[in-house]
């Protein structure tokens, strides 16, 4: 590969040189190449904000103890992402009332998961819990070598660059999407969402007593059901379908002792949503 100098510009001779990134040809160039898994042994888990952190001690402490016990066994490397919860909703509510656009909501939405990640890290500190942010990704191998449990805020770093949707102003990419994309780019061993329900239901089980539990479903089937509510951000389903590495997620009730451990061992204890 060499430099190409002509009267107009200095170019580099690559197959991308003369084609538009927006062309079908550019898409073809990437096809067929194997995608590496960056950290294939790491399990990414997401601890819910509203569903877990906002429950305080009764929910969080047993989960912390379970994670600590796992760390002692040394069987699993974990990356813990944390959600926002009711304070995020409060900030969104105020911002919405003030007429703020999606970009500002996404920016404001970053702060609450940081608070929750700090709280969780303080609880996990004596077991090796460390707080990481988006810029510290390159250090992860070091942290695992040293037996750490990295805890990160779940919100992706999109900030003001979150795209407006067709309608409304709640950011499309929140902490579920952030944690799922973390797992996918790492090529993680699994991606587990720790919530306060057994998993996915046909409706919100907190509101609708007739909601039926769905133990296992494909993205296509789930989308075809066109449910009024969902246990994860809908955009996660789109990304699952396109993913190279993490082709399923499991949603579990983290309040049941041992559930997380079982899920990490590959057992099916909640709802599994998988790519077609």
């Amino acid at each position, binding site marked *: 590969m060499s430099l190409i100098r002509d009267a107009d510009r200095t170019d580099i001779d690559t197959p991308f040189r003369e084609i538009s990134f927006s062309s079908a040809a550019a898409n073809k160039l990437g096809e067929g190449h194997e995608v590496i898994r960056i950290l294939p042994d790491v399990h990414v888990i997401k601890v819910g904000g*509203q569903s877990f952190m906002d429950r305080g001690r009764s929910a969080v402490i047993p989960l912390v103890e379970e994670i600590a016990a796992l760390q002692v066994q040394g069987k699993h490397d974990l990356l813990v992402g944390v959600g926002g919860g*009711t304070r995020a909703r409060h900030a969104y509510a105020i911002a919405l*009332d003030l007429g703020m656009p999606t970009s500002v909501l996404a920016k404001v939405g970053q702060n609450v998961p940081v608070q929750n990640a700090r709280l969780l890290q303080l609880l996990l500190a004596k077991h090796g819990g460390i707080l990481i942010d988006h810029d510290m990704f390159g250090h992860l191998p070091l942290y695992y070598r040293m037996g750490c449990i990295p805890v990160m805020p779940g919100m992706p770093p999109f900030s003001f660059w979150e795209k407006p949707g067709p309608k409304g102003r709640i950011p499309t990419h929140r902490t579920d999407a952030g944690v799922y994309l973390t797992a996918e780019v790492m090529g993680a061993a699994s991606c587990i969402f720790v919530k306060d329900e057994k998993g996915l239901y046909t409706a919100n089980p907190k509101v609708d007593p007739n909601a039926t539990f769905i133990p296992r479903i494909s993205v296509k089937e789930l989308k075809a059901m066109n449910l009024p509510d969902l246990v994860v951000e809908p955009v996660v389903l789109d990304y699952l379908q396109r993913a190279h590495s993490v082709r399923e997620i499991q949603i579990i009730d983290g309040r049941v002792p041992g559930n997380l451990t079982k899920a990490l061992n590959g057992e099916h204890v909640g709802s599994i949503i998988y790519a077609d």
Partner: protein
Amino acid sequence: MTSKTWAGRQAETGGAEFAVGDGRTHLNTGLMGASLVRADLAEQTDVEHEVAMLPDCAVLAIGGRSIMDRGAKAVLPLVDAIVKAREDNAFVVGVSGGARLRHVYHIGIDLGIPAGGLAQAAGASEEQNVAMLQHLMARHGAVMLKRDHFDDAAMYLKNGLIPLVISVPPYHYWEPPPRAGRVPENGSDVGMFLTAEALGARCCIFIKDTDGLYSDDPHTNPDAEFIPRIGAQELIDRDLPSLPVDRMLVETLRNARFVRQIQLVNGLKPEQMIQALAGEPVGTIIYRED
């Protein structure tokens, strides 16, 4: 200010207080205990007018391959025009990565790096370009605006400076897997447009090396037909073989709140940029239809 207000506003539910009883401690707001994924939330949070941050600001997006890689011959006259235009206009300026970006994508794909890794590596090419532009324009008040420090932008613009912004959006490792192939879909063009949206800018001008949009790449196809004005959806439906801007930019434009059109001008004819800043219909305008 807004004729249609957010349907869940706090006044209707009382002040923000704690609510307990289901094992979780909630703050009582319009979104209390709510699932943020329920289907009706988009409708509920929609308003006619959102509040813009810096509505008098324009955004200038300079092509990497189309302008920067041409070196002094293309860049210096454009820089002169930008400095001149600053007398009558407030704007922020960004530039994309060009040939080096294409090269790092090529090598990265060959190595099996996932889209998020490519996106993380991509930014450095563009940072080199923006560093050079800042150097050229420093004496005229060009300053780097750190990533999302938009609060500084207000100060810089009030003081007649030229803030330079990072064009690539900060998706980094979190770049969503592309729908096809491996090249990240959210490049500099998307980033500059989203910067304009976040600022609530008055216009967003893309400065490349053609007079605007053609039915095919005019550098390789002499029969390509010029398109002076086209809707974003119409442009997507036409499915042209090549676009001078990221396809994702055109898709995102369909949901624009503030920047409801973008303008493509020829940076090799710097007067086009000045005309575009004055609101003249030079080059090509791509607009949100509804």
